[in-house]
Structures are given as structure tokens and as C-alpha cells.
């Protein structure tokens, strides 16, 4: 029966020792231990969250990149098309211009040729006139000497005059 009767002395010591242990452990052991555990858990959770966020960001970034690339491609295509158009236009314009210019040059050349021709013709006419006068002078000279020779000369002159 003594087994079932609590001993007051033991109760006293038990209370004192146990409460002291609770107090000391709570202050010097459980507090830092629980804090350490919680800190570590928070750290791990934070790291996991960060990884999750980074992954989401990566996905976002990737889609952004793709969009950017698509946009860039579109812009490039447009620029290329525009450049090609511009080049075509320029080429066409230059061609037109060149044709016009060429025509103009041809025209002016033609004008120049015509002018030269006219000048040359008038020069020739003048020459011919001078020549004719010279011939006439020579003929007149010869008439004075010989009738036969005069005629021969006239024939000669006439044949040579045909050349002009």
C-alpha cells in the first residue's frame, strides 16, 4: 500500500526540481531551439518561394523574349520591305530620269548636229561661192589667152564642180 501513498517530501522536491527544469529549459533551451527551427523553416520556405517566383519570372521573361523576337522580326521584315520598295522606286525613278536625260542629250546632240550641219552647209556654200569666183576668175584669165583651152578648162571645172 505504501506504493500508492504519495510521499510529501518527494512531491515537494518534484515540484521544485521540475518547475526549475521547466523554467531553465524554457529560457535557455527551448526558446533558442524553437527560434532556430522556425528561422530555418522560414529560410527554407523563403528559398522555395524565391525559386517559385524566379521560375515564374523566367517563364514570363521567356514569353517576353519571344514576343520581342517576334516584334523584332516583324520590324525587320517591314524595314526590309520598305527598303526594297524604296530601292525599287529609286531605281525606277533613276531609270526614268536617265531616259529623260538621255533623250534630252540626244535631242541636244541632234540640235547641235543640225546646227553644225547648217553651219557646215553655209560654210560650204561660202567656199563654193569663193571657189566659183576663183574659177570664174581663172576662166576669165584663160579666156584671154586661148579659146580652146578655155573650153577645156570649163569642162574640167564643170566636172570638178559636180563633186560639190
Amino acid at each position, binding site marked *: 500500500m505504501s506504493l500508492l501513498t504519495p510521499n510529501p517530501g518527494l512531491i515537494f522536491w*518534484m*515540484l521544485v526540481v521540475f518547475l526549475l527544469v*521547466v523554467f531553465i529549459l524554457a529560457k535557455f533551451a527551448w526558446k533558442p531551439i524553437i527560434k532556430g527551427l522556425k528561422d530555418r523553416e522560414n529560410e527554407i520556405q523563403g528559398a522555395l518561394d524565391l525559386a517559385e517566383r524566379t521560375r515564374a519570372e523566367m517563364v514570363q521573361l521567356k514569353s517576353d523574349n519571344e514576343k520581342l523576337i517576334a516584334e523584332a522580326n516583324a520590324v525587320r521584315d517591314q524595314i526590309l520591305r520598305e527598303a526594297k520598295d524604296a530601292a525599287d522606286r529609286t531605281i525606277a525613278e533613276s531609270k526614268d530620269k536617265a531616259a529623260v536625260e538621255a533623250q534630252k542629250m540626244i535631242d541636244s546632240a541632234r540640235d547641235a548636229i543640225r546646227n553644225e550641219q547648217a553651219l557646215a552647209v553655209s560654210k560650204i556654200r561660202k567656199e563654193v561661192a569663193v571657189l566659183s569666183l576663183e574659177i570664174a576668175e581663172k576662166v576669165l584669165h584663160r579666156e584671154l589667152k586661148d579659146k580652146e583651152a578655155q573650153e577645156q578648162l570649163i569642162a574640167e571645172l564643170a566636172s570638178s564642180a559636180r563633186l560639190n
Partner: protein
Amino acid sequence: MRTHLRQFFTIALVAATCFLNTPSKADEPTQHEAEKVTESINEKEHKIEHNLEESEKKFNIGEMIMHHIADSHEWEFTHGVVIPLPVILYSADRGIEVFSSANFHNEHHEYNGYHLVHGDSEQIVPVDESRKIYDFSITKNVASMLLSAVILILVFTSIAGFYKNNKGKAPKGFQSAMEVIILFIRDDVVKPNVGPKYEKYLPYLLTLFFFILINNILGLLPGSANLTGNIAVTMTLAVLTFIVVHLNANGHYYKHLVKPTGVPAPLLLIMIPVEIVGVFMKPFSLMVRLFANMTAGHIILLSLFGLIFIFQSIVIAPVISLFALFLNFIEIMVAFIQAFIFTLLSSMYIGSAIEEHSHADHGH
């Protein structure tokens, strides 16, 4: 058994020789001598009988078990290896008295007007029966408790040091071994049972668990005290839980005691006493469960070891030793389970007392 037989034969032999001798001596007799011989025979027989009785007495298994389970004023590791512990007595007339329990080692177990009574358990009683004394001795149990307290404080403050010094690093060694248990208590015992405000009770419940655990395990060591199998200890723990529960219980808990919801008025006559008995039943069950489990475990183990000394047979001893080994493993398991259950139930009692009832009551 064998020694008993031997003793029996020696008696028989002595008796026989005496018996055979008497007639030859009777031839040259003096009445006086014959008387002397019979007297000496009687004396011898008496002595032998006494020896027999004493050897019978030497091993009383019930006494042995009680002696091991009960508290003592000295720490006996084995016969002769004894650490005397301080006796602290308080009495109104003499005040506080402190002396070593070794002082009781005399024929009458008496010292300074006190008598050490060996019964089921030891008790110090004053020789003068009119005096009233209070025994605050550092008994074997108290010494063991102090030892466990020192171990607990050393172990857990050193672990706390790991957490402070190795901040942000992975736990290692002993720290991770203890961390598993601490996390188990926190996440699987306290958190789900106490509820969201668990952190306030965590230090108490963790200490409770480790205190019971270490004392359960220390109690299994040979020569150690049976602290958690002592009803005073389990009672103190249960009462502390009771106090923690009822200091923190909310209004709903108390209201529920006197006015259980959903009970028809006539039934209240029965329900209120039942509820109130239930309040005291909880710590009572805590007290008895731990006490009975640990004491029963010790009794079984000691009974097995006692069997070895009863049979005194070289054949049976190894078998019993194997059995005792097996039971020792079970006791180690029980040490953990009982510490766990005590903590679990304490958490549940606290949880049920502080639970917030925002919606309808679910009963129990």
C-alpha cells in the same frame, strides 16, 4: 535448491552419527555426559534450523521487488555498494535537521531520536511518537530526479548552443538526433492537439516529454531509481498539467462544465456531476497510467530476475535472461510510449480547454 539439500543431508548426517554414537558411549556412562551430548545435538539442530530459516528468508522475491520499486534513503547499487544520501527533516520543535543516512547503519537503525523503519518502503519516524516530522530527505528518487534534471539542462542548453552558433547551417550529430524528437513533439503532438496558440505551451510540454522520457530510461538502468513509477512524481506531473489546463481554460470550457449544450434539463442532474468528475478523472488517469505502466514494467523485470534466484539452475537462468532481455527492449519502448502518451494527453486536455468555439459545439 542444491544448498538446501546439502544442508538437509548434513543435518541427517550429524543426527545419524550422534544417534549411532550414543549407545556405545552409554556403556561407560555417566548420566551427565549423555545429557551433554543430547544438549549439543539439540543446539546444533537448532542452529541448523535457524540457518535454514535464514536462507529461506534471504531470498524473498516480494520483498526484493518492493525494495527495488520503493524509494530509499540511500542509493544501493548492489549489496555493499551504497551511497548514503542526506536526510533532511523538519519538525516544529527542532527545526531543520540535516544528517547522512549512513547514521542509521546501526543495530536498531536509530539516530538522534529517529528511527528508520524498513517496511514496504523506508520511513523515518521519531522515537518519541508525539512528535510530528516532515521528511524532505534527498532520497534515491530525489537524487535520481536531480541527476535527470542536470542531464536535461546540460543536453538541451548545449543543443540550444548549436542552434545559436550554427545558424543557417544544416543540423548535425546529436543536434539532429534530438531535433527529430523535438519536431515530432511540436508538429505531431502539440500543434494538432493544442491548436493555433500552441507556442505558449510548447516549453512545458517539451520539458514534460523529455523529463518523463529520461527518467523512464534512467529507471531501466540497473541500480537506478524508479522515479516515474512513483505515484508522488506522476501525481505532481498530473497536477501540474491540471493547473496549466485550468489556468488557461477559456470561459466556454467552464460554462460547458455547468451547462453542457444540447442536454435536456432533467439530464443536467446527471451530466453536471459527470462533467465535474471528468475534470478530475483526466489528471487522475494521467497519474495512474504512468505510475502503473512503469511500476508494472519494473515488477515484471524484477520477477524474471527473481526467478533466476528461486530456481538457481544453470539451465533456466539463460532462458530467463533472454526473456528479461526481450522485456527490457519492450520496457525501452514503453518508456518512449508513456512519455509520448503523457505529453499527448496533456496537449489534448490543454487544447480542449482553450479551444475557440466560433460555431456550434460538436460535443466531445
